[in-house]
């Protein structure tokens, strides 16, 4: 079966065409519900320990609004591009889908580079390491956990892009793409709260 004929046969929403696909999408949503509690606990810890700075630097001294703004813009845009990837998938346009996914991955990498640079600055120049104070531990735990999620997402989406190239868009691969895009949006939603509660509130004092 040629690729084009195969695509024609693909149902309109390939991610929900099979029971396995529907299970996967629903199961992933439930997992995101669990992740909400996971990040909720991390946020709660940060809020509880945010003033325990000891002799270390405080949020006001550390945070730079411009870096946070750039990071936010990058991640927001990447969320939009991953929506475009899903739209391309629904229109069965594999080339566009891969392009948008590629842009998402590049933006994700950009975000990571920025975060690593930020952490490096904190450790090297501000003397703000993981063990400096309870504030620093909770800061790195929360923001680092989010960063680890971004890194995992970048790896995951890259792997899926390779799979799509090999296997094409099928009722098996489509749910994977859909779920990865849900994951990516969720990371973005978490970041909305991170820039608000950690950085902006930290700046307000």
């Amino acid at each position, binding site marked *: 079966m040629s690729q084009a004929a195969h695509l024609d046969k693909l149902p*309109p929403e390939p991610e929900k065409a099979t029971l396995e696909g529907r299970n996967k999408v629903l199961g992933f949503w439930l997992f995101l519900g669990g992740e909400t509690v996971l990040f*909720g606990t991390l946020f709660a810890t940060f809020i509880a320990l945010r003033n325990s700075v000891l002799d270390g630097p405080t949020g006001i001294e550390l945070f730079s609004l411009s870096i946070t703004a750039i990071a936010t813009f990058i991640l927001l845009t990447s*969320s939009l591009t991953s929506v475009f990837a899903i739209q391309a998938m629904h*229109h069965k346009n594999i080339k566009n889908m891969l392009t948008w996914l590629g842009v998402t991955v590049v933006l994700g990498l950009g975000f990571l580079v920025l975060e690593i640079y930020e952490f490096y600055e904190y450790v090297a120049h501000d003397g703000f390491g993981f063990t400096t104070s309870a504030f620093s531990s909770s800061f790195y735990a929360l923001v680092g956990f989010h960063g680890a999620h971004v890194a995992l997402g970048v790896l995951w989406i890259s792997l899926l892009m390779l799979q799509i190239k090999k296997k094409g868009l099928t009722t098996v691969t489509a749910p994977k793409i859909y779920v990865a895009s849900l994951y990516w949006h969720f990371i973005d939603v978490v970041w909305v709260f991170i820039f*608000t509660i950690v950085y902006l509130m930290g700046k307000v004092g």
Partner: protein
Amino acid sequence: MEANQEQVQDRVKRGRIHEGPRNHIIAFGISIFLTLLAFMAVANSALDATFIKIFIVILAVFQAVIQLAFWMHMKDRGHFFQILFLATGAFVAITAFIMAVYWVWW
């Protein structure tokens, strides 16, 4: 006649599949706007600190809801369990938040 029917069918299908990029770009615009508003509120030192905090948290919640509804398709049909479970997760997260604010230090 035939072509017309096809068009109708196509439109029906498309409506079910996807509403096109317009809504997503609007959601992006709103997100950017809300983010800018939050950053500006913080940069504006004339405002009261408590007011800023409450204001930006409301903005964040608003932005999160928009992204969930549009980008994660929560506004579409067939998302009852998704909404139920994410809302419950958020509820537990909020209890943890209240715990952290009121019952850790005294």
